[in-house]
Structure formats: structure tokens, C-alpha cells
């Protein structure tokens, strides 16, 4: 863990004859944002935590999607299932993130598992609602046509319902991703993984650049992820945009 080595070595900057910028440089003065620090620690702090953050987010949204998708399919066939699962995921969503991670620690320890359980829990409400709304939004006439063409239930689902639900599903994934990126920074309160770790560490040492720069990187990551997903959404479902422009 790169951060541990920094922690062990004491003060903020590995000191080889003074911090970059010299005795009166930005780092020595503990300025708001020192570019020197960012370039010096891109390799050992920022980049590794950025990659961890992406991995945490990808795993959480992946697992969350699998669960929410299965639950939405069940709720689509058996509508009574919507209320209990919806209430369960809404309940999870109302627990403050800082508290939820702490509550899981006595059960699963200070592990990645704890973080992922929490993050997956927070994605469920958004994904479940959007997938289900997408499936329900398919016009009845289309379903009748599929029925008339002799499609089985499974064929109708795969060839008709899912493609038509795709805009709603991708929209849900997009919100789930940006929400998870945000919550994953809080998750570093439990284990020093992801971009939250340098933020919490910086808050303790009061070295401003560390938490300001990492915070800025987290914001940049979230905004970029959102933009990339918007583009992906448009490429995947060109008809949705065409219809929107037409009306």
C-alpha cells in the first residue's frame, strides 16, 4: 500500500534536501494547491488510489446491477415483489453512509467486502427502479404484436422488452455510477482504498494540497464518468434521442 509507506516515513513529503519549490515554496508554506505535490505524488498516491476507486466502483455497480436486474425481472413478472424489494432498497438508501460502513465492520471487518456491501446496497434502489420502470414502459401494443408474432415470453423479453427498456436502464446505470463514485470516497473511512484515503489522510495531517488535490481529482473523475456514460447512452440508444428531438 503506497500510502502506508508515506505514513511510516512521517511528514508530508519524502525529504531529499527539502520539498520541491524550496524552503519558501508552495509545499513548505502549505499552500491551498501545490502543483509540485501533485506531480511528485501522481505515481505513488493519486494514480493508485484513482485506479482503486475505479475498481471499487466497477465491482459495486456490476454486482448491484446483477442483483437489481434479477429483482426487477422478478417484480416485472410478479408485481407483488416490487413493494418489499423497493422498501428494502429504499431503507438501505436512507442510512447515512458513514454509519452504514461502521455498522458492517463488526460483521465483515475492515475489509473490501465491507465497503462493497455498503456500495452495492446504495446502488440497488436506483437500478431497481429504473430497470423496472423501463420494462413497464414498453407500450402494450408492442407486446401484443410480439405475442401475435408467436414470440415466447423469453423471446419477448430479450428481443422486445429489454431493447425498449435500454434508455431507462442506461440512465439508471449512469446515476448509480456517479453515486457510487461519491460514496466510495466516504468508504475510505473504513479501509484506505480509493480517492477517499488521501482525503482522510490529508484531513488528519492538515496538509492542504493532499485533500484539496485528491478532492478535485474525485470531482474530475465523477464528471468525466458522467460525460462518458452520457455519450455511451446516446451511442447505445440512438432512437431515444431521435424521438426526443422529434417530440
Amino acid at each position: 500500500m503506497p500510502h502506508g509507506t508515506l505514513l511510516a516515513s512521517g511528514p508530508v513529503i519524502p525529504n531529499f534536501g527539502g520539498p520541491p519549490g524550496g524552503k519558501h515554496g508552495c509545499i513548505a508554506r502549505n499552500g491551498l494547491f501545490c502543483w509540485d505535490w501533485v506531480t511528485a505524488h501522481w505515481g505513488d498516491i493519486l494514480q493508485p488510489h484513482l485506479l482503486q476507486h475505479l475498481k471499487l466502483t466497477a465491482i459495486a455497480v456490476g454486482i448491484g446491477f446483477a442483483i437489481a436486474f434479477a429483482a426487477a425481472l422478478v417484480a416485472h413478472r410478479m408485481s407483488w415483489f416490487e413493494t418489499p424489494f423497493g422498501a428494502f432498497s429504499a431503507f438501505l438508501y436512507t442510512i447515512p453512509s458513514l454509519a452504514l460502513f461502521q455498522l458492517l465492520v463488526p460483521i465483515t471487518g475492515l475489509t473490501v467486502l465491507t465497503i462493497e456491501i455498503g456500495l452495492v446496497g446504495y446502488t440497488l434502489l436506483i437500478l431497481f427502479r429504473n430497470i423496472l420502470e423501463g420494462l413497464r414502459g414498453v407500450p402494450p401494443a408492442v407486446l401484443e404484436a410480439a405475442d401475435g408474432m408467436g414470440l415466447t415470453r423469453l423471446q419477448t423479453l430479450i428481443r422486445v422488452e429489454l431493447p425498449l427498456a435500454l434508455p431507462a436502464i442506461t440512465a439508471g446505470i449512469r446515476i448509480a455510477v456517479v453515486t457510487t463514485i461519491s460514496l466510495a470516497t466516504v468508504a475510505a473511512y473504513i479501509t484506505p482504498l480509493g480517492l477517499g484515503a488521501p482525503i482522510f489522510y490529508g484531513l488528519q495531517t492538515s496538509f492542504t494540497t493532499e485533500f484539496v488535490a485528491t478532492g478535485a481529482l474525485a470531482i474530475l473523475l465523477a464528471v468525466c464518468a458522467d460525460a462518458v456514460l452520457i455519450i455511451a447512452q446516446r451511442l447505445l440508444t440512438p432512437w431515444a434521442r431521435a424521438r426526443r428531438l422529434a417530440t
Partner: protein
Amino acid sequence: MIFSFDTFKPSTFVDAFRFIGDNPGLMWQKTAEHLQISGEAIGFALLIALPLGVWLGHIHRGSFVAINLSNIGRALPSLAVIAIGLGILGIGTTNVIFALVVLAFPVMLTNAYVAVDGVEPEAIEAARGMGMREHQILFMVELPLALPLIFAGIRTASVFVVATATLGGVVGGGGLGDIIVNQASYFLKGVIAASIAVSVLSFAADFVFWALQRTLTPRGLRKERVAAVTPVPALGQ
């Protein structure tokens, strides 16, 4: 981070309620702080976002900014915003309020814009035909019709602010977050107790603005509730 590794039993939840009963002073003080921080943040965000959103919607300008702002706003990681606010404003409540305003502002603005912008042109034309002036159209036609959606944004933002104010505990901002980040002093029962208080406050904030919305809506317009444009968002829109 520093942990006291409290053990967790089902009875911890019972202990949490006992904790509230045993420490009424602490709970009241932290809840009051939490309310004050959230209230100030919601107030400031309202003061900036509502006039701007309503005005932009009224003149039907700036749709690109007004709509995309909420996308960016939703994407902002709260902890990162609080960290940057701390860097700029230093330790204390001010930076938490600043961060919360930044986080609440986009949702309110987008909903206010979409609400006023989306008022049926026929209604406005009719009002103009009746000889109403521009400000009369705004206050007597557009705003009443836009009210449900404006309030949907306010309610969403205020629930979000109350929940996120918890993170202020990380930077010594006060409020119930102080208890939640201090498991070493208050144990898990205290953490759960404070979480329950945060949840209750979130529901209370939603209820207060719901009640205000009902009072402000003219009787003829009281219909079903409207979902906010942003958090139940998109669905392919």
C-alpha cells in the same frame, strides 16, 4: 481511521434507543446543530437558486446550463466538495455550509427552471390576452403552475442536505456527524442513535416542505405529487 471496534449484537439497536434516552442533552444539542447547519445551507441555496432558475425559466433562456448543471451537481462527490471547502475556508461550520450549498444548488435550480420553462404557452398567452403584465404573468400564472415541480426540487435537495450534513463530522463541522464519526466515545449504539436522528430529520425536512407546498398551492391546483426532475431522473428522458 481510529476505531474502537465495538461488538455488534442485535441488542445494539435497543441500546441505541436507550442511548437517546440516557443522553437527551447531547442528542438535542447535536440535533439542533444539525438543523441549523442544514437550515442555513438550504436557505442560502434557495436564495440563489430559486430567483435564478425562475427567471431563466421565465425568459426561456439558458436551458443548456440549467439542465446540465444538475447532472454535474449530482456527480459531485460530497466528501470531495467538503474537502475543497475546508481547504478554502478552513475548519468549522462555514465550509460545511458552503459545500452543502454547492451540492443543493443545482437540483433546486434545474427543477425551478424546468418548472417555469414548462408552463403551457397557452396559459401564458391567455393571461397576456387578459391584459396581464409581465410580472403578473410570472407571479399569478407561471409560479402557481410551476409550484409542484419547484417544490419537488426543494424537497429532494433538503433531504440530501440533511443526510450529507453528517459528513461535516469528518471536518469538525458539528451536528449529528460528530457522534457518527466518534465511535470511540459513543460506541456503536451512539452511532446508530445519531443515524436514526439523521433519518428522522430527513423525513421531517421532506414533510415540512411538503406542508409548505400544500399551503402555497392554490386550491384549484392541488393534484397528485410530482416527482423531481433530477433524482428519479432520466428514465431515458
